[in-house]
């Protein structure tokens, strides 16, 4: 059933009529996010030009009981921005202004459609940067980052989006406008900003975000090390941590991932080694130098077969290029793949990777591993061929891997979110009372259930449906973004 004309007319009263898209062809561009297996064509797509128009549009939704879904760049990997049937998509793409950069107080105020990297670009002239760095940072928006509590390789040391957002102006599902959070860590009362962050667009739409900026570190040291086994690379990670070092990043790749990445970008990785680590330290030059020596010694102690130290910013960029390319490059060695995003306690990495390898063998499928080793955030890539009829098996294996992470004391998702994709797995991680409590929180913000319904928390209707296979994001195919 389509939205009736009264609703459309109401939207054209608060927005410029040409900012209300109803042409099915145009609306089709909004039918999925980065999880391309799920598609729903929205009835209407709204393109407000400022915060007032967002609020006005939401008020119309509220008045008519129309469900709405906020959308940033559409790079989400869990179907968070998947439209709702008979609902509207509210795109924040036109709210792209950096409203203020305040070097004295080290913060910036930006509209939600500003990309992650644009914040750093605006801050850079002051020697500042915005720390959370998802590998989609060239295109993903701060609004999407807020909704997903996005992370990146450097979140091991610096934390996630939630640790870097001071406040958000939010349009609540009834169209009222509030500010969650304050100018400092000090807040009067419960941390509603913290609840909103990572709520995947289900509690309201943010129209302005105040972020903290950090001083660009004085020194950065990066190395790439090869190891005779995944276990020895894992031991290096443990030893670095128990030496009291907090690296800026520690990333691991296995044979398959290295092979794929090297074929794609020739970044100087050693094809055929069982595991490679990228370790990066940053900070005051004296600290960095002292700790870097220690990291090298730890690598050597664990039988490192090759140690390559970036001697210049270019070499450093090259190491990262290999690491970041790994994800998409897997497409070169397999016609299709599913990507998983589970977290396990760091100390169980070797055990979990072993189990995953075994599960792959049992299923007759290959699994490539590229991941944030420092915080145990795995991205196992299940390789398969749809043409050979392996889809269902691969899908099952991918789901089992996520659930294995939970069983190991970890989480269903470290950074991609629950969205549509994993809502039905939530009962594996949370009990009935936990989920009921989350429902109550949601109800407090959105009593009518019109704000991104069906996402995050399981519903019977949703959990009857099946996901489709992973397809590369269109932007990934053009090389505009990479996956970490």
């Amino acid at each position, binding site marked *: 059933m389509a939205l009736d004309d009264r609703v459309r007319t109401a939207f054209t009263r608060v927005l410029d009529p040409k900012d209300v898209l109803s042409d099915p062809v145009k609306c089709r561009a909004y039918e999925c996010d980065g999880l391309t297996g799920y598609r729903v064509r929205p009835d209407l797509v709204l393109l407000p030009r400022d915060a007032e128009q967002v609020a006005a549009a939401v008020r119309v939704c509220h008045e008519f009981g129309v469900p709405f879904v906020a959308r940033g760049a559409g790079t989400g990997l869990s179907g968070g921005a998947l439209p709702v049937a008979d609902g509207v998509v509210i795109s924040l793409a036109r709210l792209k202004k950096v409203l203020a950069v305040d070097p004295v107080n080290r913060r910036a105020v930006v509209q939600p459609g500003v990309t992650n990297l644009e914040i750093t670009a605006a801050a850079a002239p002051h020697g500042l940067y915005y720390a959370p760095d998802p590998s989609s940072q060239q295109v993903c928006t701060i609004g999407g980052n807020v909704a997903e509590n996005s992370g990146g390789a450097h979140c091991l040391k610096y934390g996630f989006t939630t640790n870097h957002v001071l406040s958000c102006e939010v349009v609540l599902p009834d169209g009222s406008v509030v500010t969650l959070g304050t100018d400092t860590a000090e807040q009067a009362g419960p941390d509603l900003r913290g609840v909103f962050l990572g709520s995947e667009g289900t509690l309201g739409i943010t129209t302005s975000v105040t972020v903290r900026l950090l001083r660009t570190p004085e020194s950065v040291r990066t190395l790439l090390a090869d190891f005779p086994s995944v276990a020895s690379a894992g031991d290096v990670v443990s030893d670095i941590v128990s030496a009291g070092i907090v690296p800026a990043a520690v990333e691991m790749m296995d044979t398959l991932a290295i092979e794929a990445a090297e074929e794609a970008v020739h970044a100087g990785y050693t094809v055929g080694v069982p595991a490679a680590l990228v370790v990066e330290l940053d900070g005051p030059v004296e600290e960095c130098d002292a700790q870097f020596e220690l990291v090298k010694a730890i690598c050597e102690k664990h039988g490192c077969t090759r140690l390559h130290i970036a001697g210049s910013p270019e070499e450093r960029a090259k190491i990262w290029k290999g690491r970041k390319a790994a994800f998409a490059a897997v497409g070169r060695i397999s016609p299709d793949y599913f990507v998983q995003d589970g977290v396990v306690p760091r100390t169980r990495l070797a055990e979990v990777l072993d189990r995953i390898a075994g599960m792959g063998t049992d299923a007759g499928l290959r699994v490539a591993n590229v991941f944030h080793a420092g915080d145990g955030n795995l991205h196992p890539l299940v390789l398969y061929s749809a043409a050979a009829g392996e889809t269902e098996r691969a899908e099952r294996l991918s789901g089992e891997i996520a659930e294995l992470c939970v069983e190991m004391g970890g989480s269903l998702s*470290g950074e991609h979110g629950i969205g549509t994709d994993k809502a039905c797995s939530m009962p594996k991680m949370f009990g009935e009372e936990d989920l009921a409590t989350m429902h109550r929180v949601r109800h407090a913000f959105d009593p009518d259930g019109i704000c991104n319904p069906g996402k995050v928390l399981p519903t019977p209707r949703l959990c009857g449906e099946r996901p489709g296979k992973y397809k590369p994001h269109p932007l990934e195919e053009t090389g505009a973004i990479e996956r970490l």
Partner: protein
Amino acid sequence: MKTTTTLRPADLAEVRDAVRDTPGRLAVAGAGTAAGWAGDLDTVDAVLDLSALSGVITHNPGDMTVSAHAGTPLRALTDELAEHGQHVSLDAARIADGATLGGLVATGDSGPSSLVYGTMRDLVIGVTVVLADGTVARSGGHVIKNVAGYDLAKLLHGSHGTLGVLTEIVLRLHPVPQRAATLVVDAPLARAAELAARVLEGPYEPVALEWISHGSGQLLVRIEGTDEALPARVQRLQEVLDGGDEAADDPWLRHAELTRGSPEAAVLRIGARPSVLPALVADVAADAATVGLGTGVATVSLPPHAVAEAHGRVHAAGGTSQLRYRPPGADAPAWGPPPSALAVLRAVKTELDPDGRFGPGRFSPWM
């Protein structure tokens, strides 16, 4: 006056039963170190004293996480964690007085090192909470990176015992630095603010940067690092500060003392943009103060009659304030003008505690 029952549950099931089986209004109490913070508690039918709900549940040194019962005093974790060179990187003054994990989360407390490590909200990765109807809810987990579901810990942070009873708390840990140094510069607030700005503009990475109203004022700058690197960093820092001595005693004890305040004065906690904070502190006519020149968080002591006006000034400057202590019998409002999201706060309260059982009065007059 009617007598109040005190309940001392010793595990999660007992907390749930106590909440379910005790009719009426309940106060949640940890160690009693922040008993007077926020609004005055109305009469309650029972006090849930969580001091028996204490102890470490699991410490995973390799994962740098620890879970503990909410009634555990934070300082009781110190020895266990120190054995592995780890700690909870929170240095709120009242930890030394025995403040509990639950109490620290519920009050949203933090200390000078929040400049780098944030407040309790940034360190808690999982919680278990008992709601007013006896529901037991968990969120988060035992891993640092986790985006599954709503983060209920954030909701309890700063809730002052009004939304639920925290029973278990999982924290992320940090390595204890090999070495730390604090430089002390005698300077009035305005001069200290200038120096602090210089430090923040450079690559010095201070862990804490505070001014205290000790004598005619002192700037305290703490850095942490390795045995090998720290001496050179101290030297560089002295150059930018035009001096500054490494403190012989522990100046942070003076800081903690000033943060606690004295029994005769009201204590107000203020947050504002660092650039406006020094003038604001001067404006509210504080008798004593600690001022976070990087964090924007200050704790000031002032006469109770000056509190209402101070709230107003802070809010006019775009900041936030809450009362931490009022002398017995003194009349000083706990809160300033309500936040714009008051309706959401009320809705959350109604969802989780529809009968207003927990911590009545704490957010008076807002709810």
